[in-house]
């Protein structure tokens, strides 16, 4: 007993124990309740008994296998296409001398901060079969309207555009970190540019490509944003639409079946996260990044320089420019219809004016900003502590902490939300129907992203600084405050901004957990879309995008000032 007190008496062990318990609670409690919900005979809050009947019902229904097939096809298609687009974009902007490549590279990251719900809505307005803007244009010029966004190809295409920035970041990093000597050797031995690309470059970055593909597969399988807008009306059932239908969209709601489908989706994503982690460990094995300072050679495209830039620009037009322009246009039209000359003469700012007057919107902005600022701060500090404990200490059991922190990463938003709903609805601290249940969900779900950005900074901090501090008589907390936190600050700020932009636009989890008095922006956008208030929805969307861009610019400026300082 005395030993245990002594153990916890040391601040670092106390910190380890407290964060371990908090993390285990955040990760395991909803997991337990997701399974619990799937095994109960009655709805949330109603006494009942344990049963297998939900599993029997789900897995004896042929529809389940159809939706499994749909989910696999959708996720594989979206992931494959996103990787292809990212590869082209990354190769042009990182490895060639195509003009404007820096600007194109920066633009590629923008969709990461635009709510994907809005990207999907924009594409419905552009590609719906009857009066989608692109179809209308094509009908007027070519006499045909060839596109229909309401189908599996449309769903895959839109989700691929949403996922491309993430694949781009992974692949571009791999291309940037390559050792050029292998390529140079191949050239010396007589290979042409194309031969080098096929035989050297792509095999070298293959693990990164596979990692991006498996990561995007998981993201597509778990997303509800694009399916909510395209799959539901197109009658394509995927796991997340099914969970939504059972938990919210039907009467009476069946949270037991929603949990059972949630368990199915969780199993699927766990398998692919396992695959991803195996592949990323291979990325390290294949690592050609060494201490040597080098930059990969730029490939001279000669006459193909401008066409290459044009190709990259085309991808960016699809990913960023068209959705943003569509959104902006909708926000200034009196009511949405295909833009024609007489409509363009009646543009209005009234949706923006009404944003200021509508208290549902101002409440949602307040809620989302609160979640973004407080949530991202809580999440990043928690991530910093866990990161410190797993990277910098030799405490036995730190590996367990690392694994616990990654559970939510495999957890699809919809399944996590159903687990959280079951877990917290009758929790002794009454957080259900308040903004705090969203806070718990956001911190749990996005902790791995926070960890990723903080741990990369922590790894770089040499142990001798802490040792010097300890030698000079500073205690653990003094070292943390004076040495570690200032050194970790750039990573923490970058992580904070990423989290805050995630929190401002979060939808897949919020839609299941929010309540009318504590509604954040994601569900509000969806309901405005449902209700048909396109102008207000687009206005809010433009504001969220601007807000996120400002946050990213602010963070970049801060980081530059830190480095300069």
């Amino acid at each position, binding site marked *: 007993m005395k030993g245990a007190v002594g153990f916890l008496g040391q601040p670092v062990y106390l910190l380890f124990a407290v964060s371990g318990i908090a993390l285990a609670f955040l990760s395991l409690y909803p997991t337990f309740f997701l399974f619990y919900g799937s095994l109960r005979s009655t709805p949330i809050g109603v006494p009942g008994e344990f049963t297998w009947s939900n599993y029997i019902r789900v897995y004896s229904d042929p529809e389940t296998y159809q939706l499994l097939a749909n989910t696999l096809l959708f996720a594989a298609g979206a992931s494959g296409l996103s990787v292809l687009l990212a590869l082209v974009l990354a190769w042009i902007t990182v490895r060639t001398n195509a003009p404007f490549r820096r600007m194109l590279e920066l633009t590629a990251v923008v969709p990461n901060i635009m709510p994907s719900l809005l990207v999907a809505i924009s594409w419905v307005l552009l590609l719906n079969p009857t009066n989608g803007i692109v179809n209308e244009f094509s009908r007027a010029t070519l006499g045909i309207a060839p596109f229909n966004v309401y189908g599996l190809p449309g769903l895959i295409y839109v989700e691929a555009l949403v996922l491309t920035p993430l694949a781009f970041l992974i692949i571009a990093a791999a291309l940037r970190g390559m050792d050029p000597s292998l390529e140079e050797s191949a050239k010396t031995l007589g290979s042409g540019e194309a031969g080098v690309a096929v035989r050297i470059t792509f095999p070298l970055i293959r693990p990164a490509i596979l990692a991006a593909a498996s990561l995007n597969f998981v993201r597509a399988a778990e997303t509800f944003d694009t399916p909510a807008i395209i799959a539901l009306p197109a009658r394509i059932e995927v796991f997340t639409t099914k969970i939504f239908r059972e938990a919210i969209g039907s009467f009476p709601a069946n949270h037991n079946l929603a949990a059972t489908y949630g368990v199915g989706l969780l199993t699927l994503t766990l398998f692919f996260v396992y695959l991803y982690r195996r592949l990323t460990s291979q990325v390290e094995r294949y690592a050609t990044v060494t201490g040597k300072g080098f930059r990969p050679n730029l490939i001279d495209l000669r006459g193909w320089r401008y066409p290459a830039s044009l190709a990259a620009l085309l991808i960016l037009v699809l990913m960023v420019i068209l959705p943003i322009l569509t959104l902006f246009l909708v926000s200034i039209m009196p009511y949405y*219809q295909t833009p024609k000359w007489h409509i363009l003469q009646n543009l209005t700012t009234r949706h923006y004016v009404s944003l200021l007057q509508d208290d549902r919107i101002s409440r949602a902005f307040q809620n989302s900003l609160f979640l973004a600022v407080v949530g991202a701060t809580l999440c990043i500090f928690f991530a910093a502590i866990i990161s410190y404990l797993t990277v910098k200490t030799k405490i036995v059991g730190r590996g367990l902490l690392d694994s616990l922190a990654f559970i939510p990463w495999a957890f699809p938003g919809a399944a996590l939300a159903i687990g959280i709903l079951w877990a917290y609805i009758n929790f002794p601290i009454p957080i259900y129907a308040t903004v705090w249940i969203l806070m718990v969900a956001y911190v749990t779900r996005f902790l791995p992203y926070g960890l990723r950005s903080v741990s990369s900074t922590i790894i770089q901090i040499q142990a001798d600084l802490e040792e010097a501090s300890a030698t000079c008589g500073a205690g653990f907390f003094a070292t943390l405050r004076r040495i570690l936190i200032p050194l970790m600050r750039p990573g923490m700020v970058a992580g904070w901004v990423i989290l805050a932009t995630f929190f401002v636009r979060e939808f897949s989890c919020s839609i299941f957990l929010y309540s009318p008095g504590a509604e954040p922006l994601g569900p509000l956008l969806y309901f405005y879309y449902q209700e048909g208030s396109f102008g207000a929805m687009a206005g809010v969307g433009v504001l969220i995008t601007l807000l996120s861009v400002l946050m990213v610019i602010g963070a970049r400026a801060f980081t530059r000032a830190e480095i300069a300082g």
Partner: protein
Amino acid sequence: MRGTFLLGLGFFLLTFGLSPSASADVAGAKKEGKVVVYGSLETGTVNILKKAFKERYGVDLEYWWSSSTKITDRITTEFRAGKQLFDVTLNHRPLLKIMKKEGIVGTLSSPAFKFFPPELVDPEVGPAYRHVIIGILYNQAYIKDEQAPKSYEDILNPKWKGKFVMADPTRHTTTIQWLANFHKIMGKERADRFIKGLGAQKPVLVDSITPAAQKILTGEVPIGFTFTKYIVIYGKEGAKLDYVKVDKMLGDGQYMGVSSKPPHPNAAQLFIDYFLSEEAMKVLADVGETVTRRGVYPALKDADKIKFVEFDELDEKGFAEKTQEYRKIFFQ
């Protein structure tokens, strides 16, 4: 003589209450500060009422719009979690009756009931203050009057295959009821044939009836089944919509429910009284709602010629059976 008349008028006004808040404790409501309403009536319409309500009583109206189905699911889940956050819901009768049975909503009362035709006043959930009529609406910018269907069955013509919109009859309770009641206007055999025909036409399915109207308005799907009131609502914004005039049209009575444990009881009663007042009903009529309060007339063209047939109600078992039946017809 004139004095007697004025005295009589004064007495009449006092008795029958031009002031809509005869039964409510206004001071108590003011102290509570707000009333929380979950409803399926459009936010734009409620915003007009909200402003007037605040100006008149200094009480905020917090409104959450969703489909009746989602509202009922939410209210039920909140109730089971021991959290009754809403005061009043604008919903339809079968769902209110189910919630009444579970003790989630209480019995509605208001001195304003007497201004509604007695046959429309339900002892538990009050008057059907408006009828929402579902018709075939089309956008005249895309479909000329002579091209539009002339009867229900005309929509089964192959030229409309996959080209009309309706709410998903496996998810949307009003639509489930609407289809289940077609036998009331065309007999069972014809109705069964019609519903099977609808499924075979593979319509564009949306979450509820409002998004269907949106698709017609934007021209994305320029024809479909939705509420006739949208002709007036969107007409005010310059849209040119019309409806197919058929012999009889099915519709739903819309009612109010009051929470069995309202967090703001006085504000809830004040809102119920205000909502059923002539002033509020006029606001609804003006935006195209077919309100039923005596002396208030809807703004929809030819509304008086519509032969309205109200849905019969389905119970929970009925909903489950019909959902299964329509799943087979519309999804297989």
